[in-house]
């Protein structure tokens, strides 16, 4: 069965510092991986995806993610965090057999001024 794990419930980072939000996956077959962000009282917003190709994927709002096949990871990164980046971040994998997205449990990012 496909799954993703987000090992950290919360990540705190100072404004201007680089941030990393971790995600590991378990899939049979090719992994189709996504990151979404959720601001309070809003729906999830798509940030970026990895389907195939370059391991470094660039997305919205200056975010990027690195696909690492050997470590089965897809960590979300940003070189310089903003207070406005504070939100709930979800990693997801698409089960290509059933077309179901399986979401991680979410990581709350708090960027401190």
């Amino acid at each position: 069965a496909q799954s993703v794990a987000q090992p950290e419930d919360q990540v705190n980072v100072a404004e201007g510092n680089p941030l990393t939000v971790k995600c590991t996956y378990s899939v049979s077959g090719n992994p189709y991986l996504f990151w979404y962000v959720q601001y309070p009282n809003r729906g999830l917003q798509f940030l970026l995806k990895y389907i195939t190709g370059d391991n470094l994927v660039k997305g919205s709002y200056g975010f990027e993610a690195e696909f690492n096949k050997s470590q089965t990871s897809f960590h979300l990164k940003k070189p310089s965090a903003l207070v406005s980046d504070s939100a709930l971040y979800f990693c997801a994998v698409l089960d290509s057999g059933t077309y179901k997205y399986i979401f991680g449990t979410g990581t709350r990012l708090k960027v401190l001024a």
Partner: protein
Amino acid sequence: DTAVSQTPKYLVTQMGNDKSIKCEQNLGHDTMYWYKQDSKKFLKIMFSYNNKELIINETVPNRFSPKSPDKAHLNLHINSLELGDSAVYFCASSQEMGVSPLHFGNGTRLTVT
């Protein structure tokens, strides 16, 4: 111009009542979904429709019935509401089933008293 809009935003009702949530997307997408987010922010697929055809029907109680009158609309009707149905329900759409990103509405917070 909201891409995926759902109404109402808040729904407070008593146990045993029947209620509906409406969803409309103006993105021209072929696929629409209902997700449930519980109090711990865990997100789970309930249903998906592709071109008005039911594709995913997760193990949800029969009290939940989706209806897609056309490609742009996917409504959710809930009979005999229970306390455990309290959650935030998100409608989403994607261009097609598969690796297309999901576009979420802002959610309907259902509270059953």
